[in-house]
């Protein structure tokens, strides 16, 4: 009932003559609606095939049974019990909790670094670069690392950070250190470094986008009100860049939480991460266990995003 009322409005507005015949009106309205669905169909189809179906399958498989030889369709929560095995023991943390803590640590460190760098770069491009052409050029410069695969970008750190790598050699050559620094590669440091390298651009772009929308007269108004540069930054720029910060944070957090390649390569396959656990289970063909882990990870990431959107109402701010 409401859809005829709503969709008949534009038709009447377009051609008053058509309103005379109700039959032709409804036919036209229906065609219009069909067209609208048709227009939305390709995207809906892509979502269905590449997002909804795999997710549903993962969810289903997470409840199946498995043994060394086969996967048996059934309904059991054993996989989830296995994920949290020993977690009720409060004396020392179970594997899952320890893995999550490690991943969260990387996540927090990467988030802090990318936010700091991303905000600074975006601020520079948005407020200190005057010409639009120059802004575009600098933006392209930011994307240059993406011209190669991310595995190659990671591997390229190895000759730099290794035991006999460029950094150690240089420092030793300058006489600043006697023995090579061991912790440069295959350590928490190198993992975070690679994460920051890979993900900072996901912070820069949305933050720049929010900043570009800030009316320059607001900055002048703040100056007129006696605000110092830092006061303007904190009281005007940061609050107005919040939507960009939130979107960038969602990108970085989801990417780091699900990662297993970077932690593997840069951690020398010695550091655990949630993604790595899932990958190992997959390669052992323990698909139901991997699926259960994936569902738990998905839940954890969604909780983080919900918490973040609680802080900032994204739809309101966009």
């Amino acid at each position, binding site marked *: 009932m409401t859809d005829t009322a709503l969709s008949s409005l534009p038709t009447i507005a377009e051609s008053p003559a058509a309103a005379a015949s109700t039959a032709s009106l409804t036919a036209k309205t229906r065609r219009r609606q069909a067209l609208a669905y048709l227009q939305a169909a390709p995207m809906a189809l892509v979502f269905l095939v590449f997002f909804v179906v795999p997710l549903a399958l993962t969810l289903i498989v997470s409840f199946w049974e498995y043994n060394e030889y086969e996967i048996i369709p059934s309904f059991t929560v054993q996989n989830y019990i296995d994920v949290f095995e020993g977690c009720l023991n409060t004396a020392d943390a179970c594997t899952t909790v320890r893995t999550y803590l490690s991943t969260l640590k990387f996540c927090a460190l990467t988030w802090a670094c990318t936010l700091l760098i991303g905000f600074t770069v975006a601020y520079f491009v948005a407020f200190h670069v005057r010409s639009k052409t120059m802004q575009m050029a600098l933006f392209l410069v930011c994307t240059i690392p993406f011209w190669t695969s991310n595995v190659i970008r990671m591997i390229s750190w190895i000759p730099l950070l290794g035991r006999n790598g460029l950094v150690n050699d240089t420092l030793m050559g300058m006489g600043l250190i006697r023995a090579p620094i061991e912790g440069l590669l295959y350590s928490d440091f190198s993992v975070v470094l690679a994460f920051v390298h890979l993900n900072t651009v996901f912070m820069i772009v949305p933050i720049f986008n929010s900043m570009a929308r800030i009316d320059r*007269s607001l900055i002048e*108004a703040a100056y007129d*009100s006696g605000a110092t540069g830092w006061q303007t930054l904190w009281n005007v720029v940061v609050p107005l860049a919040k939507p960009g910060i939130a979107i960038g944070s969602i990108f970085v957090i989801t990417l780091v939480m699900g990662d297993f390649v970077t932690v593997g390569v840069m951690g020398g396959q010695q550091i655990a991460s949630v993604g790595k656990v899932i990958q190992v289970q997959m390669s052992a063909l323990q698909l139901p266990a991997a699926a259960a882990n994936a569902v738990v990870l998905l839940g954890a990431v969604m909780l983080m995003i919900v918490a973040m959107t609680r802080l900032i109402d994204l739809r309101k701010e966009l």
Partner: protein
Amino acid sequence: MDVELIRLTKRYGGTTAVDGIDLKVRSGAYCCLLGPSGCGKTTTLRMIGGHETVSSGDVVIGPRAVGDATPAERGTAMMFQSYALFPHLNCRDNVAFSLKMRGIAKAERRAKALAMLDLVQMAHLAERLPAQLSGGQQQRVALARALVTGPKVLLLDEPLSALDPFLRVRMRTELKRLQAELGITFIHVTHSQEEAMALSDLVVVMNGGRIEQAADPRTVFERPATAFVARFIGGHNIIRLPDATEVAVRADRMRLGPQAGPEAVPARVVSVEYQGTSVHVGFEADGLGGEAATALTAVIDDRAYAGHPLALGQTVPLGWDADAAHRLSA
């Protein structure tokens, strides 16, 4: 506080936006910078407010040249054309912003902000965000924000241009009332001569980065200094006399028919506009100065017009009172 501009100049690369202007605005005056767009009036205002660097010359506010002091140090406050209210802060916090920047405690700054909002009759909407306000309401909040720190000079950049005509007249009255109440210097940029006439003690007509005339509104209207001023203020006919000098004659001092006097020229009626209290009649007259016909306007009292109505295309003698002709400088 007195505001004085001494040989004030602003150059952007090769172009000169403000060209060595001198001006003195005495304390407590309502000054309007009037001119077409691109005449340098906004640049001048921004230099007074410290939002634009000075290429050469000085801005003197009160006893001292301000150099590159910040707006707060100058004792000026600016009301921006787009109002520039912070979209993430409600009205009260917008007004309290500069107090917050000065480190004034929350309770005190909120009380002050509310008092200021009360002054502009916006206290009842203190919790609203700027996006939830109408243009006129936003303007009141912007005014309160500019006034909250007690500036000595208030700078207004086309404050009424975004409002509809009805609201514009109302806010105009209110600005004048506030200025009288506070007794501080207002410098107001506008391109509307009507606004400048209605508000100011001192009208500064600018053109091409220079001041054409700076005087009280009556002087500007009675004795426009240049042809530009006479044209911009409106209500004047600019007539080139046989000796090549130019005079301005107020349109309401033109004389028609028998009263036209000995120097009358034959003029053809090209338009008649009824305006209620008066009738604006457009003429074209040959034989005044140049080759082309001169367009002239006469404003005739409605009763006088009713007595002698004119038809389009009719030719009548058109002259002016000799003492109404004001000579213009080149």
